[in-house]
């Protein structure tokens, strides 16, 4: 059903997309060709239209090819977990004809949707349109940015799953059968091969998606905790506070993060991890106070410390655009609420007897915590992914 829908969507997209490639002339030529086609059919003659039809087909073929290239680029690039820059798309896919971007982008998204259930989305800069704080407005002015309320696009793109949330949840749930097969096929189970001493990231729960294989789970876990902390602190947390809380979680600045053998990094500290998350766009670090004006080095994280002009600068952390697009405030709030509502040890109590009412109680607690987080985040209501 959905496939049909998207497929039929694709056709119009494709034909729309011709003008940019063939420039203005292309469009009128094409529509003329169409008209002529119809006319000719009636007049039972079809000589003139043919050539132009071929030209139009060429344009179409070129567009399709570029769309496929963009799909490849997006899929490959995603493995680096950094955003795909529009410049890179222009350079690698569009070549000389960068004006066809919109058409190619739309066609590529059609393929991604249909084939992989994914989409390329542009990251938006972090400040919500409505309440651009004074400080930020000032900053924008200082940076010479035009005051366009809606123009918050960053020209950075990430790949995002479009599958239904219910489906994703099921695909992330443990499954004994898959797990058993996975275990028996693991190289460590084969006597001929050396065992990997590093067990991090080798344990599978047998879900349809192999998260343990595709990601550094410990790093992601720490990221989500940090996102949660920022959210409940009112969407911004001072560097000092964040460090203090992390320390309490046994994660001081130099604590090593467990990494699976897949990485080529020998070890990574919390500090390095924070810098990396900033670079990837999950977090934003900004200088507050005196240095604020020149201090916002978006996407450059640790680099800010370098131009420290002697005064001890204070920093604060916010969600980065990628976190807003990939995780979403509501999801993190839900995650926190469910975590807070679950009382360890309760599961063991005789479930059958109080099962139903207990379930209700948990739900209620989840809601209460969720509303609490919403209040704590202060200001705009919690945003879904965008």
């Amino acid at each position, binding site marked *: 059903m959905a496939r049909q829908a998207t497929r039929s969507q694709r056709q119009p997209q494709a034909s729309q997309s011709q003008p940019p490639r063939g420039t203005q002339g292309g469009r009128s030529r094409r529509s003329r060709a169409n008209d002529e086609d119809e006319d000719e059919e009636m007049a039972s003659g079809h000589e003139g239209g043919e050539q132009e039809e071929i030209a139009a087909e060429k344009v179409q073929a070129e567009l399709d090819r570029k769309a496929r290239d963009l799909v490849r680029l997006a899929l490959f690039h995603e493995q680096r977990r950094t955003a795909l820059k529009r410049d890179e798309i222009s350079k690698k896919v569009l070549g000389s004809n960068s004006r066809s971007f919109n058409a190619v982008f739309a066609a590529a998204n059609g393929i991604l949707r249909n084939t992989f259930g994914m989409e390329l989305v542009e990251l938006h800069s972090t400040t919500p349109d409505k309440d651009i704080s004074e400080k930020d407005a000032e900053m924008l002015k200082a940076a010479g940015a035009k005051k366009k309320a809606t123009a918050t696009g960053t020209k950075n793109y990430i790949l995002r799953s479009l599958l239904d949330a219910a489906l994703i949840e099921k695909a992330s749930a443990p499954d004994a059968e898959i797990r058993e097969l996975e275990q028996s096929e693991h190289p460590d189970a084969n006597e001929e091969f050396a065992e990997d001493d590093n067990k991090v990231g080798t344990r599978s729960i047998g879900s349809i998606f192999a998260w343990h294989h595709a990601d550094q789970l410990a790093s992601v876990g720490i990221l989500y905790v940090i996102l949660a902390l920022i959210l409940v602190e009112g969407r911004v947390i001072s560097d000092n506070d964040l460090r203090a809380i992390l320390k309490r979680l046994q994660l001081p600045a130099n604590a090593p993060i467990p990494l699976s*053998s897949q990485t080529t990094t020998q070890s990574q500290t919390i500090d390095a991890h924070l810098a990396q998350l900033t670079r990837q766009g999950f977090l934003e670090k900004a200088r507050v106070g005196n240095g604020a004006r020149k201090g916002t080095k978006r996407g450059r994280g640790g680099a800010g410390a370098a131009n420290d002009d002697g005064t001890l600068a204070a920093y604060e952390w916010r969600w980065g655009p990628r976190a807003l697009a990939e995780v979403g405030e509501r999801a993190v709030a839900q995650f926190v609420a469910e975590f807070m509502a679950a009382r360890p040890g309760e599961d063991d109590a005789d479930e059958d007897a109080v099962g139903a009412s207990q379930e209700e109680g948990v739900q209620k607690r989840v809601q209460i915590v969720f509303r609490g987080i919403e209040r704590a985040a202060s200001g705009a209501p919690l945003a879904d992914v965008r």
Partner: protein
Amino acid sequence: MGVSSADVQRLFLQAILSRRILSQKLAAKIWEKCIDAVKEANETVDIEYRADRNSWDNFVTSVNEALNPLDLEFAHLHDEVSGKEMYAVVNRKGDEIAQLATEYTATEIAYFKAVLEQIMLAPNESFCVSAMACLREVNSLKTNMTKSQAETTLSSFVARGWLLKSKLGRYSLSTRTVLELQIYLRNTYEGELLDCTICMELVTRGIACYTNQCKTRMHTHCFNNFKRRHHQCPSCSQSWTEANLAKLRPVGEPAYREGQDLNQRRARRKSTGDDDEDEEDEEERDYENGDDAEPEPSQSQPAATQQKSKGKRKAAREASEEAEEQEESPPPQTQTQRRRSSRR
């Protein structure tokens, strides 16, 4: 976006992309679970999982119909160790875009290629290389890589399924590498490759006929099937009866001779023209010496090559430079925060 039957394939592809390479058995199980998940999410969806091979093949065909226009393929190959059928999404085009298909840095890819070269050119058809020889390869890189960084990188190659590491610490090709880099391997090591006489796929572990000059090579699993019904070599008709089976020569790690890669470094120019043929012949002669003139002490080999090792080394450097320039479908991917941050 509601859940529909078309989501089975999308979910499946996402699952495959998260795993990279997996057995047919596991892939089919995941397909079944994808169908279950879609049906749970939308009860009106009416699809049935069928466990028979035909249905699976049809499903693979339909997956490939979606992937092929993108120059990707859901390809399969028999694992040389277990004989199991393995599936992976493979890139079939080595364009500029594909060069991004990796989380490894340029240096790490150059290192991978250097190690690959040692494996491909290993003497005695052993197709494996010791950890020592691997670490030595950092010297062939244009950029600096410490030995400990090389160790981490090697274990990353293993963890991501690009290389296999044996109990004895030797590295060899994985099914993933053979599957994904087949075109690169065939182009680069045309003269060094062995094809299975039975299934025509690349052999890096298996058996070889014991007749001099006989070209018969077989995967272990192909051989196991073959010997049930046949008792002579398919090429030279040499008798392969029970008594003679022990004479068959191994291909792969069992053919490795202690110290074979300790003192020498093998490398060859990319075969771009005729002028390479000499070198190729040389290599072949090396093999023959080692293989056929059995008693030749293994030490003599390094000695023989030592004289020309200087020239070879130079050739190797050139080769790796060349390789770096025209990267085919570069391998592996991993997060490389450190290095990247230091580069910025």
